């Protein structure tokens, strides 16, 4: 009888700790995922506006747009990590997007994607969650006047 009771405490404690890990994971990991998603969205908004502002119908304008995006001093993961692998694309009408458009004179829109924001999962992986969770973000803006469109 005493042995059974000791076993029960062990099992109850294990189940409770698993549940506790899941709750901690929800608060800690999901909280960080939401923050990263929000930070990435604000960054792509600012980057798309910065890129659209530089569009002037020339090839040099496209290069200046990419340069402007590369120099935005915003970070993610609670403001600690730089955005990497940022993609800048251009379009004439918002239907077809190209990183190196052949006709720079027709470009009126810029789109920025931050695809590689991988949040490392701390607690949820102990209860079967993934090791990492990627939170991509994207925004597009038009030039003259510069306004966010997506």
């Amino acid at each position, binding site marked *: 009888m005493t042995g059974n009771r000791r076993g029960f405490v062990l099992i109850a404690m294990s189940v409770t700790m698993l549940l506790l890990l899941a709750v901690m994971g929800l608060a800690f990991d999901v*909280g960080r995922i*939401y*923050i990263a998603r929000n930070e990435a969205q604000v960054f792509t*908004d600012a980057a798309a*506006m910065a890129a659209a502002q530089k569009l002037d119908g020339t090839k040099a304008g496209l290069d200046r747009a990419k340069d402007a995006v590369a120099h935005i*001093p915003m970070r993610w993961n609670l403001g600690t990590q730089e955005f990497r692998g940022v993609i800048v694309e251009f379009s004439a009408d918002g239907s077809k997007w190209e990183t190196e458009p052949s006709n720079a004179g027709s470009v009126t829109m810029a789109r920025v994607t931050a695809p590689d924001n991988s949040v490392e999962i701390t607690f949820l992986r102990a209860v079967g969650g993934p090791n990492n969770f990627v939170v991509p973000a994207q925004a597009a803006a038009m030039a003259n006047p*510069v306004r966010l469109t997506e």
Partner: protein
Amino acid sequence: MRRRQSGHAMIELAVCAAVMVSCLAGTFQFGYTFYIYNQLVTAVGNGGRYAAMRTYRGASDVDLEKGRAAIRNMVVYGDARPTDLAPVVANLRPDQVDVEWVKDKTGAPTAVHVAIRNYPVNAVFKTVSLEGRPGVEFPFVGRYAPGEREP
């Protein structure tokens, strides 16, 4: 014998309760701090977008300060001219929002930096002070009117 078992149970309960209360307290602390931080990211993002697109009027220092006040109001109340003074993030005040214009050689604004400064997140068990974070920088795409006055 039964009294000894009861004593063991008390010790087990005490140890388990201490571990679990610590874990739950930590969970609440991090969860609440992240929740507030996420709200602040949204708030400074809204303020940054508004600042980037509004007309920059710089006839005098008073006009510049009025412009900054409107941006701070957008961050704190979600409205440049608020009628309801309820902050979008608990206990956030306009003086805890930093607004700085990045200017070129001629004095024209090229970007605006909006950040939170000296904001304490009171998570009951511990208070975390946010200094300069979260912060955003948006390119200035509004109208530049250095000779105009703020209405």
